[in-house]
């Protein structure tokens, strides 16, 4: 008995759906999820991957079937049937993709809203203490202040920022903190919806420059070359650039934001998994663009606090008091003796120090 073609179509349809659903969840194409936002993005991607797999298999299947079934047989020089179109069919294949893309748009809109993309004003409610604004490297946070600094004071502030002083010279475009006019602060991804009422637990100012990232923690004044974040706490990253456009990207967080000179852009997120991840510059910034990467360490709040304390010892002083810049000023002390009080604060034993020095 011949099986009717409608049965075949149904069976192929069911098989196609199952394969698509399976592959949409098992594609193994994305890295680990290390932020709360990442799981939202991955849910969207998995849905798109499911639909895409179905469409891909339909198109390739029809192509392969046509190639096999409708190839010209030898000595057949006649033309095919004169079918010019089929209006209901054309309406169907216009409507289905339209519904699919509208559905994906609505889903993306929802995910974007969940991630806090439409929360441009809530960030201004976050308190920024006057002390935090005067901290080294915290100059970008000043733009959040309700009373904007005058051009003169911001210029002074800019020149005094030790975090970027080393790279600022006449040849390079100076860091600009306070451009005239509106739109200088472009909040892009705010806190997730349920966290919008709360201020972020931690703020970090990030400056991109050729070819490094500088992270400043305004609450403590610590300036570092790698980013440490406590797990499970919402963090706001204020991003700007010194010279050319860079982009802050942590693949495991699924978040990316351009660092644009003359602008401050902000993203908020909550790291959800401990680990060390690569922080990559994703916007072409010069020949050594590929080398511009550092790491993000997501750690337990206690470990983060301990790390912060070590860093404070190393970086709270201004440059002329820094121990590295002023070695062994009392000549009677050996370097080990001179460093002993500092290394004790940093949690380094004299033995370790001795090993490093020799």
């Amino acid at each position, binding site marked *: 008995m011949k099986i009717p073609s409608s049965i075949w179509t149904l069976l192929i349809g069911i098989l196609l759906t199952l394969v698509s659903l399976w592959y949409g969840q098992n594609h193994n194409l994305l890295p680990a999820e290390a932020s709360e936002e990442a799981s939202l993005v991955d849910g969207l991607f998995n849905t798109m*991957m499911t639909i895409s797999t179905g469409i891909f298999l339909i*198109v390739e299947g029809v192509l392969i079937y046509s*190639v096999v079934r409708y190839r010209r047989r030898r000595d057949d020089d006649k033309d*095919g049937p004169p079918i*010019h*179109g089929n209006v209901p069919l054309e309406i169907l294949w216009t409507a289905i993709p339209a519904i699919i893309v509208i559905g994906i748009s609505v889903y993306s809109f929802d995910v974007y809203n969940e991630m806090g993309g439409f929360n441009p004003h809530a960030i201004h409610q976050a308190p920024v203490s006057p002390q935090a604004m005067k901290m080294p490297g915290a100059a970008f946070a000043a733009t959040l202040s309700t009373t904007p600094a005058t051009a003169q004071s911001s210029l002074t502030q800019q020149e005094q920022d030790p975090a970027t002083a080393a790279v600022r010279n006449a040849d390079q*475009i100076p860091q600009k903190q306070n451009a005239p006019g509106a739109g200088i602060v472009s909040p892009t991804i705010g806190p997730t919806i349920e966290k919008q009422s709360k201020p972020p637990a931690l703020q970090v100012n990030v400056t991109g420059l050729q070819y490094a990232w500088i992270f400043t923690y305004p609450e403590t004044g610590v300036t570092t070359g790698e980013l440490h974040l406590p797990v499970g706490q919402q963090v706001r990253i204020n991003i700007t650039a010194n010279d*050319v456009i860079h982009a802050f990207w942590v693949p495991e967080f699924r978040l990316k934001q351009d660092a*644009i000179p003359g602008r401050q852009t902000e993203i908020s997120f909550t790291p959800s998994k401990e680990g060390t991840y690569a922080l990559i510059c994703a916007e072409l910034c010069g020949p050594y663009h590929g080398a511009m990467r550092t790491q993000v360490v997501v750690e337990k709040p206690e470990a983060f606090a301990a790390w912060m304390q070590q860093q404070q010892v190393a970086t709270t002083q201004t440059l002329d008091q820094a121990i590295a810049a002023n070695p062994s000023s009392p000549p009677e002390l050996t370097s080990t003796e001179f460093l002993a009080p500092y290394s004790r604060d940093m949690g380094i034993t004299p033995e370790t120090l001795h090993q490093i020095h020799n």
Partner: protein
Amino acid sequence: MVQAQIQQKANIAAEIDEPGVRKWWEYFTFNTDHKVIGIQYLVTTFIFYCIGGVMADLVRTELRTPEVDFVTPEVYNSLFTLHATIMIFLWIVPAGAGFANYVLPLMIGAKDMAFPRLNALAFWIIPPAGLMLIASLLVGDAPDAGWTSYPPLSLLTGQVGEGIWIMSILLLGTSSILGAINFLVTLIKMRTPGLGFHQLPLFCWAMFATSALVLISTPVLAAGLILLAFDLFAGTTFFNPTGGGDPVVYQHMFWFYSHPAVYIMILPFFGVISEVIPVHSRKPIFGYKAIAYSSLAISFLGLIVWAHHMFTSGIPGWLRMFFMITTMIIAVPTGIKIFSWLATLWGGKLHLERPALLFAIGFVGTFVIGGISGVMLAAVPFDIHVHDTYFVVAHLHYVLFGGSVLGIYAAFYHWFPKMTGRMLNNFWGQVHFALTIIGLNLTFLPMHKLGMMGMNRRIAQYDPKFAFLNEICTYGAYLLAVSTLPFIINVIWSWMYGPKAGNNPWKALTLEWMTASPPAIENFHKPPILATGPYDYGLENTSEGVPLSDTEPVLSASTNSVLRANPDEPYPAIAAETDER
């Protein structure tokens, strides 16, 4: 009698008895014949394609290993900048213009383009602009800020190289604008009597949409680049934040052209595929009007999606959502085209031995991957993750290589007999096709995963964990380089010694096949006649067709009538609607 014979019989009068033949040296002159200019375009752009391809392979050689060990990072940046600029502005865009130049006047039964001298000028701008761009390598200061050339980076890298790049793009843009005006006027004013818009071959519709897009968007790029040149040479600060400028404004101006440029690069080849598939599967195109108007829809929508390249640039949330939705909607007219091509293939008699059809089928099969990843990229939350990564590189190469370049090859195999009067070798064409499809998927498929896992683009060194997939990509790129050899040898050999093609080797119905191969210098002796529509294949298969011997034309005014007037009459009545033919 099949439709092609009817169409040919009706157009015997249009053939020129003793077509003049062009001398070889005429192809090196400021000739105003659209066929000479078309071949000048195609040969020139193919040479640039080879140069751009060598650069791509140098880039891939550097990326074979994670370390910087083949060229210096500065040279590496110059290589990918030049590769992209050459492939876009000196290969795909002018190749589309080249085919349109050759085929479009023939398709509409015209003797030449509307403005022949302007046409020659548009071509002759290209070689100096291209040579200038490549010469920047010899100066030792090649542009190295990427083909997007975002300030402030482009203002800080070499001034000479950046200046050469701007000048070269301005010249090529001018050439493109001149060509677009010419195509539009030719299409509107020069159609043979009785050839209405709805009888135009779909390639003409595609060129109409493309030319409109070029005219609207290219001047904005020119404006952006002139402002950039002022910043570069005159010390103004349009895009320089130090003086109150804004680098993001440049991105808007750049992408206002450069996203439509994507459609400028793909629409002509959508048109080519709409020509190739019906001819070689011996079936009318499915949904003529849907395909024709979807070209216009893509052209319009293409103008309002540009900021999807800037989702991470700090643009406001509502703007991101607006551009996400417009970008998503573009998938609908594109989908209409894909499904219409599939329906055209369905039930036809596919001449699979012909490389033109193979490349057209390959086009549909690989372009759909680029289309799907395009919809994914439109979704803002996902784009934020993969923007500026190898996922984007994979997407754009599936669209531009798996789409445009396969379309260019389909067009070469389809129209080569018309252009030269000789047939290409089928076997080497099949080898070329197989190598190209394997090479292309080997090179670009792994890049999807690389991008999502965390490999950013435009880097000379990368995380060693990506080494394996990158090595596959590199070998794929070498295979692609090898795959062009059968094509080049086939073309050169067939051009000189290939078997004669005859006027209409594919038994096609469009008017370019109703004259000699290669066509006479002024194309047609008399204005050609449409005895049948451009895609009316298989009408002889219908049972109620009115026999040609019927002397009562009134009887033939039914759906299945194949011919309703004496072919010897110069202007037979032509049904305006496909259904009435």
